[in-house]
């Protein structure tokens, strides 16, 4: 009769109570896993979208560009610098970008927006904008036509093959104005991005803003997101500190801030949930020890050392948690895996609200191991904490009193 088997049997002496306790843990685990998975999916989607389209995981910038995104704070990395960066282990792609602001006009309508010069041949591997071209076609290197984001096009009443007029200030105050035909319309899944403006070939942008070989930033993507800090250090070394090397967190402080505050809000909810469940487990353990006082006395009387008895009660307490977590995962894991593959489309009313705040109208779910690991740790920690109670009860148990009870 090993202790684990005895613990198992003891649990099912009060079948209904154990089932209710297990069910409450199971419920908590399911809810917490779904919540965490939703957060995980939302965050990683947000990061992926903004990193892919806008920033890259790492950027090379002019030291002043981050504070003031002016066309004047441009850089002109040399071909050898770029190839040195490309040679760094883990670096996937290196592409240049020139971006600034301009007024777009068509007929009597005028709108402000971004002008982003990209390297179309390299973009396929980085931002993959061509994937989002809804009408017309994607850019080629050397093109003198442009892509317009969907909302911008709509506001200006422009379509493919129409002509867009751009007015801006170029490098060091040079005035810039030009008219370009529209080659395509891009429609992103993230509604906010559809207000962005214009994409054009890097060469054309350099010509428009009169920056010569200068660019605003070099975007670098990496194979593995976890290697970012090391790669940042390697790039800084490879370029002798001539540029500001920033990771996506620094480039997108708003995203990081949003994730952090949203996450802590979620954590508080989960913590409250688990505390409530924890008290339920505690109640069960108190009853379990109280109604078995005499039996515990008998075991000590006939010669079971208290340590052994304690191990038994510890096993019983932990087992409740283990069963709860297994039951919870057996429900939540399949659901989460399914939802990750099939993001839930939001109902139309919600979708509009989401769109207003610039989110894609989907619930995304993630399956990062921490989503599950966290539940295991919390339930184990909680039951281990609760198991102090039987420890204390056994330690202070008087055999003769227990036998008389």
């Amino acid at each position, binding site marked *: 009769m090993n202790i684990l088997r005895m613990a198992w049997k003891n649990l099912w002496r009060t079948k209904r109570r154990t089932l209710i306790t297990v069910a409450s843990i199971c419920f908590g685990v399911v809810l917490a896993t779904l919540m965490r998975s939703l957060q995980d999916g939302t965050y990683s989607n947000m990061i992926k979208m903004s990193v892919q389209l806008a920033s890259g995981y790492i950027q090379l910038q002019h030291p002043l560009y981050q504070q003031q995104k002016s066309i004047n704070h441009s850089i002109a990395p040399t071909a050898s610098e770029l190839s040195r960066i490309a040679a760094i282990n883990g670096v996937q792609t290196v592409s240049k970008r020139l971006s600034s602001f301009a007024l777009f006009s068509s007929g009597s309508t005028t709108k402000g927006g971004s002008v982003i010069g990209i390297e179309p041949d390299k973009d396929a591997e980085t931002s993959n904008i061509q994937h989002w071209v809804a009408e017309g076609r994607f850019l080629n290197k050397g093109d003198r036509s442009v892509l317009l984001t969907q909302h911008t096009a709509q506001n200006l009443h422009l379509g493919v093959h129409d002509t867009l007029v751009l007015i801006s200030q170029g490098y060091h105050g040079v005035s810039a104005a030009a008219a370009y035909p529209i080659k395509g319309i891009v429609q992103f899944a993230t509604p906010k991005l559809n207000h962005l403006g214009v994409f054009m070939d890097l060469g054309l942008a350099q010509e428009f803003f009169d920056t010569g070989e200068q660019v605003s930033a070099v975007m670098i993507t990496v194979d593995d997101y976890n290697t970012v800090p090391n790669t940042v250090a390697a790039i800084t070394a490879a370029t002798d500190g001539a540029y500001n090397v920033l990771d996506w967190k620094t480039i997108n402080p708003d995203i990081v801030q949003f994730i952090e505050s949203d996450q802590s809000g979620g954590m508080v909810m989960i913590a409250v949930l688990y505390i409530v469940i924890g008290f339920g487990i505690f109640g069960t353990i108190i009853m379990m020890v109280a109604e078995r006082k005499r039996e515990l006395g008998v075991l000590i009387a*006939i010669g079971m*050392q*208290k340590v*052994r008895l304690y191990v038994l009660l510890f096993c019983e307490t932990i087992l409740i948690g283990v069963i709860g977590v297994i039951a919870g995962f057996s429900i939540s894991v399949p659901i989460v895996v399914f939802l990750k593959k099939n993001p839930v489309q939001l109902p139309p009313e919600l979708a509009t609200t989401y769109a207003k705040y610039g989110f894609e109208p989907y619930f995304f779910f993630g399956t990062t191991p921490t989503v599950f690991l966290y539940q295991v740790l919390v339930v184990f920690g909680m039951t281990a904490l609760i198991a102090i109670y039987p420890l204390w009860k056994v330690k202070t148990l008087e055999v*003769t009193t227990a036998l008389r009870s």
Partner: protein
Amino acid sequence: MNVLEIQHLVKEYTDADTPVRAIDGISLTVAAGEFTAIVGPSGSGKTSLLNMIGGLDTPTSGTIHVQQQNITQLTAAQRIDFRRNHIGFVFQSYNLIPVLTAIENVALILQLQGVSKKERQQRAVELLTAVGLQDRIHSRPANLSGGQQQRVAVARALASRPTFVLADEPTANLDSKATENLLQIMQQLNKEEGTTFIFSTHDQRVINKARRIITVEDGKIHTDEQVVPDSATTLAPMV
């Protein structure tokens, strides 16, 4: 040979409003193989005495030697080891472990002693057969009658081959038939295995089976006499 020597034993309970002197200077020796009844009315100190003999409780003063070992000087943890190796307990209300079957209840103490699985199975079956429960070895306590449970408890008490078995009013919850049956089994084990039994009772039918009767009153020994028990010579064959 004396298995138990008690000298000037005193037990005072001080936790109550007025201190109670439950055992008031008892001296006593018990030899191996005895079948001794401790008799007295309720509140006379029987349980207090047996608890101290069994190392469940410690005296206020006096000494208890079990096989020359002074158990009153043991620490709490040492007393647990002592009980496991020297004492077999039979409690008034059976007190079997509900999740364990009869055989597991009997084997449990052997497992605590580190006896091999094969050996403890063998011993448990042997003892359950001796108490007439060979057909019920896989029954849980809940599926056994009171008398059957108490017989399992006797088998459990004997499993570790203790120096002596202490039974505090073992028949108090049994009907007369089960009482008769249990006493027969205890007498037989006493005879055949040579197990020393010390039991408390205030049931005349049980007293009649004892070979030595010690009466206690107000925590003192009143009488102590050797007797010829009822059916010692005409023991009925076991069922």
